[in-house]
């Protein structure tokens, strides 16, 4: 029996699509506090203002992240959601779960919380919605001691690192994203659980430029698999695609007759750098011009594969639109070997170089991409000890001034100016 009248929310159940209102009503049959979620949301729709307060000192002992305090500003009217804290549970690498694990996690959340979840938050964590402050420590004890799982990051912490399925199921993955993500998660436990930075910091790991975790759009450091040498071509398989014997895109577009496969129209003409052509019945690629868009490989996976000299490109500074709009991360290191053999040494050194600089010069609540924007890419490259290369240049310069550093000027700024003018008379 509904506790509150919710005519506005009820409308959301009338469409043909699944409704979160129906789901919450169903959950409220066993967790009565969920009626108050519907009540407070209905009131927010009427008042056109949120009735949630966020933030506070909630957390579990020793951790400065993983719990996000949420309170209702009308606790007497909606006592079930007076406290309605969010818990972030670190997801397993690549989000591989067993059903036994999920059932146990849900049982735990039914015991200590509202039973409501959000799979997954945009950082990647399992989001458990709604519990009271006094339930946090018992939940945390059970999570860590019974299930061997841990909380994820929140606040000014390193957020829970995330990765694509990588080499566990994908032949395009140019490095072991799971190993890399797991190693760095363990290596930076302190940074995940305790606030260290001016603001949030994320890294994400994609095995190839398809970037299935969208690291280039969402992470402060994006590690995106790539290759140095040439795309591997199986010319016999190319012929099979042209003959229509292999389905394009691995059969992903089957179910409708798209007509005969046309390699010119569907692959060669769509190459953004126009670096492909046919010579007779052989496909040719000018690999020096390839920008790793992955389109040709996606369309003809049995004929084309990433090169064999594999590693990752490192990009820095993606963020969502709070200041100056959303931005993708910027390419900083075009190619880096990413290997567990040396404990990802080069990547760790790079990450800590970024952190040392950002912790010192970053303003409060400023993402590293915003710091880079404020101080300029040349400054960032200099601090990181990286020589500028053509791949760093986004567009031709619009500032006509060139500022020389003293060490770049022959004789420095204290040289004999009269001597200089004798050689360079006006």
């Amino acid at each position, binding site marked *: 029996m509904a506790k509150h009248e919710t005519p506005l929310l009820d409308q959301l159940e009338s469409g043909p699509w699944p409704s979160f209102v129906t789901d919450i009503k169903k959950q409220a049959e066993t967790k009565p506090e969920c009626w108050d979620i519907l009540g407070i949301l209905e009131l927010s729709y009427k008042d056109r203002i949120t009735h949630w307060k966020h933030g506070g*000192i909630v957390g579990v002992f020793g951790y400065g992240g993983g719990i*996000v305090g949420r309170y209702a500003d009308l606790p007497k009217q909606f006592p079930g959601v007076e406290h309605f804290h969010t818990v972030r549970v670190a997801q397993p690498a690549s989000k591989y779960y067993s059903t036994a694990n999920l059932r146990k996690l849900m049982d735990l959340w039914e015991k200590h919380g509202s039973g409501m979840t959000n799979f997954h938050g945009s950082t990647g964590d399992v989001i458990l919605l709604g519990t009271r402050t006094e339930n946090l420590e018992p939940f945390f004890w059970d999570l860590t001691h019974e299930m061997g799982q841990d909380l994820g990051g929140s606040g000014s912490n390193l957020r829970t690192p995330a990765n694509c399925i990588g080499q566990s199921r994908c032949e395009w993955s140019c490095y072991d994203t799971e190993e890399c993500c797991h190693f760095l998660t363990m290596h930076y436990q302190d940074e995940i659980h305790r606030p260290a930075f001016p603001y949030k910091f994320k890294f994400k790991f994609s095995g190839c430029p398809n970037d299935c975790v969208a690291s280039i759009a969402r992470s402060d450091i994006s590690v995106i698999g790539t290759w140095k040498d040439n795309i591997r071509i199986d010319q016999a398989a190319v012929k099979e695609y042209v003959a229509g014997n292999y389905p394009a895109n691995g059969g992903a577009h089957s179910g409708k007759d798209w007509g005969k496969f046309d390699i010119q129209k569907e692959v060669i003409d769509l190459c953004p750098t126009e670096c492909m052509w046919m010579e007779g019945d052989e496909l040719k690629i000018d690999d020096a011009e390839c920008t790793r868009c992955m389109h040709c490989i996606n369309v003809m996976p049995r004929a084309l594969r990433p090169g064999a000299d594999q590693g990752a490109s490192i990009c820095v500074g993606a963020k969502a639109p709070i200041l100056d709009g959303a931005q993708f991360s910027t390419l900083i290191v075009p190619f880096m070997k990413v290997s567990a053999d040396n404990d990802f040494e080069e990547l760790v050194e790079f990450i800590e170089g970024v952190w040392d600089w950002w912790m010192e010069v970053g303003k409060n*609540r400023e993402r590293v991409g915003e710091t880079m924007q404020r101080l300029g890419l040349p400054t960032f490259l200099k601090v990181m000890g990286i020589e500028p290369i053509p791949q760093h240049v986004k567009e031709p310069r619009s500032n006509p001034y060139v500022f020389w550093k003293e060490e770049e000027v022959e004789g420095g700024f204290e040289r004999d100016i009269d001597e200089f003018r004798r050689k360079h008379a006006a």
Partner: protein
Amino acid sequence: MALDKEALKDAIEEKATKSPKPQLYIKDFYACDPDSKPRVIKNVANEMVREGRLAFWSSGSTTMYGIPSRIQDEEHSKED
């Protein structure tokens, strides 16, 4: 020369006590000892949380530090 750990803790506590705002960003503590690296100050501040001398206050996206009683007083004043 950088302060030793106990002197740094005292300086951080004094800053958190005297600040007009009960919650401070980690960067606000950098001025307590300009010779200490940010990472050292972060580690000391986190140790002080474990000792109960400081507490975390988090909005969910940002985490701040403060004297526990000052933060609690402010939280209660908001509820009233």
